């Protein structure tokens, strides 16, 4: 029945382990708060371990797709999230590490608040392309949207961030 799927994970377990921070960041971009992101991360890992993944499939893109599907199909349908709570969480929970304090905690929080204020679908595509380095094609596949939509959502997300993180403009 399960021919073509790798349930044992074998050496790919390490690949999944290495990709946990990536999946977690993407989950954060979907859920907007750390607690839900970690729940979604756990669900994603559990799903991968119980159902395995297709042989030859690259672990991380597949895991991100599972993560997105779980969010859309399951978690999102069961929870009502409040935007205000999300914004507060995104702006308040994330911790600046030593390297990032160099850019200034204020601007980091400002950027986090600006990201939190983005529509969910823009935030997810921005995270995939800008942070995870996905091509537009990969992002389109993970999010199950056309490439043109990836392009327009990205542009709108970046334009919104420019508006919200710049005080004066030109």
């Amino acid at each position, binding site marked *: 029945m399960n021919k073509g799927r790798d349930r044992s994970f074998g050496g790919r*377990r390490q690949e999944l382990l290495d990709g946990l921070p990536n999946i977690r960041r993407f989950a954060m971009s979907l859920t907007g708060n750390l607690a839900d992101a970690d729940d979604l991360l756990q669900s994603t890992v559990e799903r991968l371990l119980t159902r395995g993944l297709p042989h030859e499939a*690259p672990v991380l893109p597949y895991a991100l797709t599972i993560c997105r599907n779980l969010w859309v199909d399951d978690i999102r349908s069961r929870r009502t999230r409040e935007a205000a709570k999300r914004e507060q969480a995104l702006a308040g*929970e994330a911790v600046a590490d030593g390297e990032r304090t160099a850019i200034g905690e204020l601007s980091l929080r400002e*950027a986090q608040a*600006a990201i939190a204020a983005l529509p969910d679908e823009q935030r997810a595509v921005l995270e995939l*392309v800008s942070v995870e380095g996905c091509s537009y094609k*990969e992002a389109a596949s993970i999010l199950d949207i056309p490439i043109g939509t990836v392009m327009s959502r990205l*542009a709108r*997300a970046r334009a919104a961030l420019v508006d919200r993180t710049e005080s004066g403009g*030109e």
Partner: protein
Amino acid sequence: MTDKDMTDDEQLSAWLDGELPRGEAERLQERLIAEPALARRMERLREADRKAQNAFHAIDGTPMPQTVLDLLKDDDAARSQQARGGQVVTLRPRAPRLLQMPVALAASVALVAGFLVHDLFAPLVGDDSALPISGIIASDSGLYRMLETASAGDPVSLPDAGRAEVVLTFRADDGDWCRQFRLGTGASAVHGLACRQPGGWQLETASFTAPDASDGTFQQAAGATPAALEAAVRTRLGGREPLGPDEENQVISNGWKK
């Protein structure tokens, strides 16, 4: 979708991601040269992107949930993950993103100084190339800060260029302080030579490896310094030795006074 259907922001955004088809990218680059407002908009979008990256990565500073690590803990892998904390891995290197490397240099040099953009972008469509470019490096750029303050061999993280470092520091035979640097890593790196002038850092030569247009792969061995740049450095060195760490620290502390 053609460029006629796209907004400027969509084109700039796709260009920053290396996702604009070549013909459209070339037309946009022409416009970036001719329209300073468009170039400024591009810089704003790039800066917004950089801020977003930092913000998204902030979650890496919080410990990975133990329940998730336990799920994967049937070998030593989980422990090693814990030890590494929120280490960043990427999906895989992708050629379009690597094409940004010369663009990152352009942001530091040509677009800000307002010239030589043609020279810088021409190799995007060519093979392994040395760029006979020169220009003032903008004093508010990450590259400038690295050249001004970083010790050779100390990796620095720069917006867009990612990992960067000064490779070596030396005094040229005419008395100028010069530094060879690298933006990016491996075959996707831009290698450059900049020398300190009274007004600031001046880029003298830069070189990078363009991807093979046919399959997007890179032709140069990872980590190799392009021969053209090595030659430029040798010429400037004029048989002298590069500075050792102590001498270099002293010159940095003295603000690159001759």
